[in-house]
């Protein structure tokens, strides 16, 4: 707890003292190069942000500088759109509820504004974060999209009540068969519940009528307060008879999911999970609002994903390493390339802290032969679109939110550091003032700024566990190896 407090203070210091720019709401960002992700890069460019939105982007000589605007940046900087974290289960004090079906949960209750994770987001240039529950429920709760600044969840909220988490990856104590059984039954149960409601509604009406007749009253018929469900695979006739208020809150969110109110984020651990996920969302008629959160192994089901036309968020390592148990031969697959070849829209997101940096992931993609722009799209444009924020963030264009990173040099190179982070026109991070960055870089340790333990940082224990579990899953290989070793040593 003390640690958390310390973090809070630190974060406060990170959120730069209010600039005059924020009163007038005008900020000008100048950069030697602007990577817009919406057309060619701009040399010697200028960005004008007014009231949190970009009002102009272009060559310095073509974009006129408002007289009262604050100017940051300069020729030595490269301006990049703020990165978008398409899916994470971090930044919460607890990422999981250990019951099978918990759609009534709301992430807002567990988001921790001072979690180390959000501070780290700024350091890594992530300006929009989709926080969803961990994968340890069959049907999880509802998540939200936040900006990693603010002392309260309200301040952080970009899209409250956004998305609902499902998982076909067997949770602890379940196998594929039992996981699927539980998932199917969750919806079956909802249907039964709704049918029950309708029946009760009808019975009551019937009774009321008979009672009135008996008592010789004229029955004033009440108009139906409910409203019909629409656009789903299955219907419950007569549901319009049921007033919305009558719905048990334990069931309501699931119904809302079927009505298309939330995007379904379905966690898939391996190819079979993908098949199961698609089966379920098709059966429930929510394919159109489904995003698969996949681990590296799932590339094997790429054809199914492509056929279904759903976007995916690659959460595991970018490199999938598989070993043939018989020959011992290892085969490496660079997953983004497969997704690209199959024409699947994908965003990169990693729970592995050692590769979490979006810039690093994009760089890796380039190393394996992806176009620079495509690689950066996977951490900016595409995730923005997946989150339905395509018009708000993900690129530097007129009208979009002023989420801009100023980097010292090419952000994909070893020399490129995120120097300034601007979110909606507010300068929220300056590396020069980031004491912990200094600590990580040079080892100088200011008092009270020791990094919190992973638990405090709100990392999902489930995922931690995963890492230890599968040795052969690319990304977290090394960690897994060490953990393993230390375990048996510890046992000595």
């Amino acid at each position: 707890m003390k640690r958390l407090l310390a973090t809070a203070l630190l974060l406060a210091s990170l959120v730069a003292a209010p600039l005059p720019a924020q009163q007038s709401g005008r900020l000008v960002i100048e950069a030697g190069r602007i990577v817009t992700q919406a057309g060619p890069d701009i040399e010697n460019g200028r960005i004008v942000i007014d009231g949190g939105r970009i009002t102009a982007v272009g060559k310095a000589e073509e974009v006129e500088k408002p007289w009262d605007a604050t100017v940051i940046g300069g020729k030595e900087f490269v301006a990049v759109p703020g990165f978008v974290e398409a899916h994470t289960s971090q930044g919460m004090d607890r990422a999981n509820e250990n019951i099978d079906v918990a759609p009534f949960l709301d992430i807002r209750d567990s988001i921790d504004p001072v979690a180390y994770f959000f501070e780290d987001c700024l350091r890594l240039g992530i300006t929009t974060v989709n926080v969803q529950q961990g994968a340890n429920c069959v049907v999880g709760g509802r998540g939200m999209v936040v900006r990693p600044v603010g002392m309260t969840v309200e301040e952080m909220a970009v899209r409250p009540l956004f998305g609902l988490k499902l998982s076909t990856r067997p949770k602890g104590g379940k196998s594929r068969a039992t996981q699927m059984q539980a998932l199917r039954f969750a919806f079956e149960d909802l249907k039964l519940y709704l049918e029950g409601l309708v029946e009760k509604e009808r019975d009551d009406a019937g009774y009321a009528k008979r009672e009135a007749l008996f008592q010789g009253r004229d029955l004033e018929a009440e108009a139906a307060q409910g409203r019909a469900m629409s656009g789903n695979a299955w219907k419950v006739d007569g549901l319009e008879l049921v007033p919305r208020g009558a719905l048990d809150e334990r069931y309501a969110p699931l119904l809302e999911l079927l009505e298309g109110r939330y995007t379904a984020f379905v966690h898939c651990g391996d190819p079979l999970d993908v098949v199961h996920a698609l089966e379920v969302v098709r059966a429930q008629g929510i394919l159109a609002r489904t995003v698969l959160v996949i681990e590296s192994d799932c590339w094997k089901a790429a054809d199914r994903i492509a056929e279904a036309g759903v976007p995916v968020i690659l959460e595991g390592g970018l490199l999938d390493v598989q070993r043939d148990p018989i020959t011992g031969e290892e085969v490496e697959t660079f997953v983004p390339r497969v997704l690209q070849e199959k024409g699947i829209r994908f965003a990169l997101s990693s729970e592995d802290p050692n590769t979490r940096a979006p810039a690093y992931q994009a760089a890796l993609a380039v190393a394996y032969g992806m176009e620079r722009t495509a690689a950066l799209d996977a951490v900016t444009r595409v995730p923005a679109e997946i989150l339905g924020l395509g018009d708000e963030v993900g690129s530097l264009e007129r009208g979009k939110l002023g989420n801009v990173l100023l980097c010292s040099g090419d952000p994909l190179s070893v020399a490129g550091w995120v120097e300034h982070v601007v979110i909606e026109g507010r300068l929220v991070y300056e590396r020069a003032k980031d004491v912990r960055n200094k600590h990580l870089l040079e080892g100088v340790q200011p008092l009270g700024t020791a990094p919190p333990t992973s638990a405090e940082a709100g990392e999902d224990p489930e995922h931690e566990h995963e890492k230890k579990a599968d040795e052969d899953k690319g990304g977290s290989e090394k960690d897994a190896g060490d953990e393993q070793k230390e375990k048996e040593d510890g046992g000595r």
Partner: protein
Amino acid sequence: MSLALLALALAGGEPSAPREGVLQIQAAEIWTSGGERIQDGLLLVEDGRVRAVSKGKQPDPGLPLVRHAGVVTAGLIGLRSQAGAGGELQDDTRSVLPEAHAVHAFDPSHPDVARALAAGITALELAPGPGNVVGGLACVVKTSGGRVLTSEASLALSLTSAALGRSTGPSFFVFGAGEAQAQPDGGPESSERTPRGNREPTSYAGALALLRRSFAAGEGPFARARRGDLAVTIEAWDRHEVLRAVELARELGLAGAVRGAPLAGDPALVQALKESKLGVIVGPYSSGQTRPSLESVKTLAAAGIPVAFALGDPARSPQGLRLSAARALRAGAPAAAVWKALTEDAAKLAGVGASLGTLAAGREADFVLWSGDPLDLQSRVAAVYVDGRRAWPAQGH
């Protein structure tokens, strides 16, 4: 039932009193050494030994004769068996027990032995377990009459993780853990799955040092093994363990067999084994065996390396021996090689090649009357003879 196939008959003429211990077997087919098959053969047995095997020869009317419509072969030999000995073959108190004799755990009256006999196995090799770097001396015994052919057939060594870092306390290692642990086929990591016991040695290097010291000390079994008077059987499963074993054998000039080696078919291993004086005892092939492992018999035979099947622990019916063979057969090994592995090579690797394994003049008269080709699992045992006497079904049945 099997009697139906048997016809004890005396030829015509004035019956001359049959000599004691003499017997003639006339069979549709007799398998002798080197895969030779004699049609309409006649097998002459005297005083527990094979006198002659001849083709199309008329039986001597003066001697007792058994006519058999099927096939007659040498008895099968079950290697690395624990029939009737169970846990008695693994002593954890010390890593080096050169003078431990497996024969003292041999119980001729144990049902396991009878079951082996009924399965056409006429001789068993009882061997110390793989849990000790030097396990002791294996013996070869007959499955009928309780005769011990030799109580010092071979010296059992082990270079598997099963022998390393073992606990001298109540053993948490099931017998034959080497096997279990080698699944599937001693995949690259299986040697890393190892307990933390408190008994020296805990490492491969330590085990080698210990062995070198023991052989250097050079008396008893160690000296005989170095002189080549005593075969060794080295337990080794993972490929690197096998190479280590072969290297050790080369260094100390040992001959005998590697036991385990699921991936003996690996080119690197085949090469090394070829240059060594070692054969390979594979199996028993239990379920879920992968192809590379099943094909090793084929590969080894092709390379001219003697190979035989282990019988394994008591939880296995002795019928498993022929099933192992059938599996190897299915994986493409030539019938001749598989048969050799069941008899000739088995005898050789057990250190009793001179007296068992084939039907040739002078060899011990252990043979089996089969309803058909023994490599066809549909064929059944009609009768088993040990030391020239019918051992199964028991006389008078």
